[in-house]
């Protein structure tokens, strides 16, 4: 399973000379095995994936965790959507009343975007998921609602040998008096348990988190605690704050892991990096 990070930033793209290392594009990760291509979120990073679209691929599945703008803003700039020879499936969370198609259409329609969702040449299929399990090529995928404002799901992808868990926007500590000591009362626990790679929200410093409780994000320290109770092998901090420079993110990481021993690896997601998990 080849995992490519196309966008790491949260909330808003943040291209700048100070952000060259960790990147400025918003959430997008591709997962490829054989001729199966799954894309996790369609932030601004998906534009570049479209430019480097693997030759010979005729189907792509885009799995959206939620519809906050930083996770869908790249959709209209994803070139395969303009190629009728490529089958595009978009999967995303069920809401209360409006269909996923209708909610996506709010963005992909004038005046916010010149081309309507239903007019895109690839005529994408839109599927609603919630507490779901389904297969795409070699991947068995589970989705479940997690703690983040609005309908938001996380994903667990298994290929029989490896497990990737993707929970880019997540606040498992919200209101949890006993976090992180009660696994069954911890949002996302079942999705992440024993994963080889966990891509998880690590947006804030503890000082930034304090006045932002309930906004749906975590500190790196909380992400480490979550990784610890879920016994993952590696955690990749994701959804970098748009105001954080490379240097600040480095300091954030250093502070979170300082003088501590973990039974797993912890790193910051870097735009453009490629990670391989056994197939």
């Amino acid at each position, binding site marked *: 399973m080849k995992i490519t990070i196309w966008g790491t930033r949260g909330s808003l793209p943040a291209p700048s000379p100070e952000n060259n290392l960790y990147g400025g594009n918003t959430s997008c990760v591709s997962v490829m095995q054989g001729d199966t291509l799954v894309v996790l979120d369609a932030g601004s990073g998906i534009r570049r994936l479209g430019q480097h679209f693997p030759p010979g691929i005729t189907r792509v599945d885009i799995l959206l965790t939620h519809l906050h703008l930083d996770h869908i803003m790249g959709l209209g700039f994803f070139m395969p959507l303009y190629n009728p020879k490529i089958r595009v499936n978009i999967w995303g*969370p*069920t*809401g*209360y009343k409006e269909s996923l198609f209708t909610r996506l259409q709010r963005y992909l329609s004038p005046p916010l975007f010149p081309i309507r969702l239903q007019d895109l040449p690839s005529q994408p299929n839109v599927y*609603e998921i*919630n*507490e779901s399990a389904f297969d795409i090529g070699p991947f068995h995928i589970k989705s*479940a*609602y*997690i*703690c983040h404002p609005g*309908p938001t799901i996380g994903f667990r992808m298994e290929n029989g040998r490896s497990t990737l868990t993707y929970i880019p926007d997540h606040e498992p500590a*919200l*209101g*949890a*008096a006993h976090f992180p000591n009660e*696994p*069954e*009362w*911890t*949002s*996302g*626990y*079942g999705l992440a348990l024993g994963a080889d790679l966990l891509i998880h929200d690590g947006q804030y410093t503890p000082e930034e988190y304090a006045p932002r409780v309930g906004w749906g994000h975590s500190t790196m320290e909380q992400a480490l605690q979550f990784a610890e109770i879920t016994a993952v092998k590696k955690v990749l901090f994701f959804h970098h704050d748009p105001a954080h420079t490379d240097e600040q993110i480095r300091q954030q990481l250093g502070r979170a892991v300082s003088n501590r021993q973990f039974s797993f690896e912890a790193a910051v997601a870097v735009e453009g990096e490629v990670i391989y998990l056994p197939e």
Partner: protein
Amino acid sequence: MATNHIEIILTRQLADCLTIPVFLTDPEGNLLFYNEPAEELLGKRYEETGRMPVEEWSTIFRPFDGNGNRLRPEDLPLVKTLTHRRPEHGTFWIESLEGQKNEISVTAYPLIGRPDRFLGAVAIFWKTEAP
């Protein structure tokens, strides 16, 4: 270990922050949690009782009506909510595990998550003021 659904997790977290007694069950009526104010009324800490099936909690607190007649589990608002998946309300007496008798009012409501998943029920209750 299975994780609770996010709606259940958030309900418990909210209950944990409230000063009114709250009781939380899964769809089968298994008691998942009650908060500290409920512990005071029921006379036992949740850590001591742990999870309980509906048959147990609906009788353990000895509910009875104003005439002293024992209430059947199916007459309790929370059990009605679990059965019919709609809000219910009622007033009755309970005897705490410490033997103290209190008249309480209970409002129960179902937890139905997106998209139409019945996940359990919540009861909030309070001691009825003496006339």
